[in-house]
């Protein structure tokens, strides 16, 4: 019994410690963002790496999700003769929920993990110490461009995801299920609100911040050689995904 309590206690303390490190890193990233030098080339490089290079993954994920969603809702709604609402469900679900969360999770797997591995390797090979010795703050040089890239590029990816998901749904409904394309298109917009778009984009920016910062922090506090780097990478993906899913709930509640 005490053994179990002991383990729960330890896990709780570890979580608390990690949370502390995370918010400390967030604070330091924000303060270093506004201190010169502003390494704009590096900012752009990270934006390309996170944004442009993620387009294929985003393309496949959101397009197929839109297609499946149309297929599933169509079959469900058919039973209650509400096929005309498929379009609205697809567009609402993509904009408000699926596109931000799916893009967030996919980019976590693709980019968050590689950030943790990269920075973790720099830690265990003393490159982080070398940065400091060269009077370069690692938070400024490594965290700022990455977190900024996540915060700025995720909304763009999500806009792309929105469009592709809705288009995927349209393809299935019209080409496969032979719905009337004009009505389908109309229903896509009819019940939408600007809020639906905004809430998705705000979520996206926050998810972008979460996944990059988690990757950076996990990498930065790596210890224990190659094995440590592996652990940091795994933890980065797991914890960023969890934080994204948890905060998704609260953000949805908060944003409407």
């Amino acid at each position, binding site marked *: 019994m005490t053994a179990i309590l002991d383990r729960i206690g330890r896990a709780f303390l570890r979580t608390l410690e990690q949370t502390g490190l995370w918010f400390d890193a967030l604070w330091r990233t924000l303060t270093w963002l506004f201190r010169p*030098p502003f390494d704009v080339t590096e900012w752009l490089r990270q934006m390309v790496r996170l944004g442009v290079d993620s387009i294929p993954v985003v393309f496949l994920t959101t397009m197929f999700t839109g297609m499946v969603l149309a297929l599933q809702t169509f079959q469900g709604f058919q039973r209650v003769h509400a096929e005309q609402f498929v379009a609205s469900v697809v567009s609402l679900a993509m904009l408000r929920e699926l596109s931000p969360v799916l893009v967030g999770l996919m980019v976590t797997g693709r980019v968050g993990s590689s950030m943790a591995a*990269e920075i973790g*390797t*720099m830690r265990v*090979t*003393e*490159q982080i*110490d*070398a*940065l*400091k*010795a*060269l*009077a*370069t*703050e690692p938070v400024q040089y490594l965290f700022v461009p990455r977190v900024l890239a996540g915060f700025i590029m995720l909304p763009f990816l999500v806009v792309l995801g929105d469009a592709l998901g809705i288009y995927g749904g349209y393809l299935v409904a019209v080409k496969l299920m032979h719905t009337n394309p004009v009505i389908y298109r109309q229903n896509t917009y009819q019940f939408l609100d600007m809020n639906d778009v905004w809430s998705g984009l705000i979520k996206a920016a926050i998810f972008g911040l979460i996944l990059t910062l988690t990757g950076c922090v996990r990498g930065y506090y790596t210890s224990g050689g190659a094995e440590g780097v592996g652990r940091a990478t795994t933890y980065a993906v797991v914890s960023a995904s969890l934080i994204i899913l948890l905060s998704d709930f609260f953000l949805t509640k908060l944003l409407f």
Partner: protein
Amino acid sequence: MISLQHVWKSFDGRQVLRDMSIDVERGESVVIVGGSGTGKSVTLKHIIGLLRPDKGRVVIDGVDIGSMKEVQLNQFRRRFGMAFQEGALFDSMSVFENIAFPLRRHTKMSEAEIRARVEECLEEVHLHGVEKKRPSELSGGMRRRVGFARAISLKPEILLFDEPTTGLDPVISDVIAELITEMDQKLGTTTVTITHDMKVAFKIADRVAMLFNGQIVEQGSPEEFQRSTNPIVRQFIEGRADGPLTDVD
């Protein structure tokens, strides 16, 4: 100029430095020797503030860097150059970019000036035609020399070298030793060097200090050090397997 005062440092319950003190004067070249794992690298990292002492003070030019904020410390480190034991080159950059890194960040040099300075630095450590190579394509000794070149590129006031000649052939070792002496004499650089190579140590040092059991147990000019009767020093210089050095642990 550099003063470690009663520094204590432990890692996971293992005491590495215990009440360690050493002073380095401006323009002096001090060599720290000692067995493997005795805390030489740890000492060097305290001087540049990469590690903070558990107890005691690290004072550079009258300023206690142990109590400095990270931002101030970052500024302060511009006066330092450090060559790491394993090179610690940035492996996402070419050799050229590695050496140009401090120049780009801390000077307003033009691209042409940077190019010239990088070439000069590589010339000093006798490396040719490696500018475009990645650190992973270099041998251990070459990496160490690039790390050395990167450390000196800004001509800092204080230079810290962690085993700069380990793994280099005797000729290149001597080149590096000459270079350290030259910077010491021409530019008045203050240097702290760690080395296992007694030949190099005696060549570059104004003073040699021996680290043992977390403390400096003996220090003096190369001549004094060589004549020392301290059994720990004698065993180290003569490289014998039995003696007080090998009795502990």
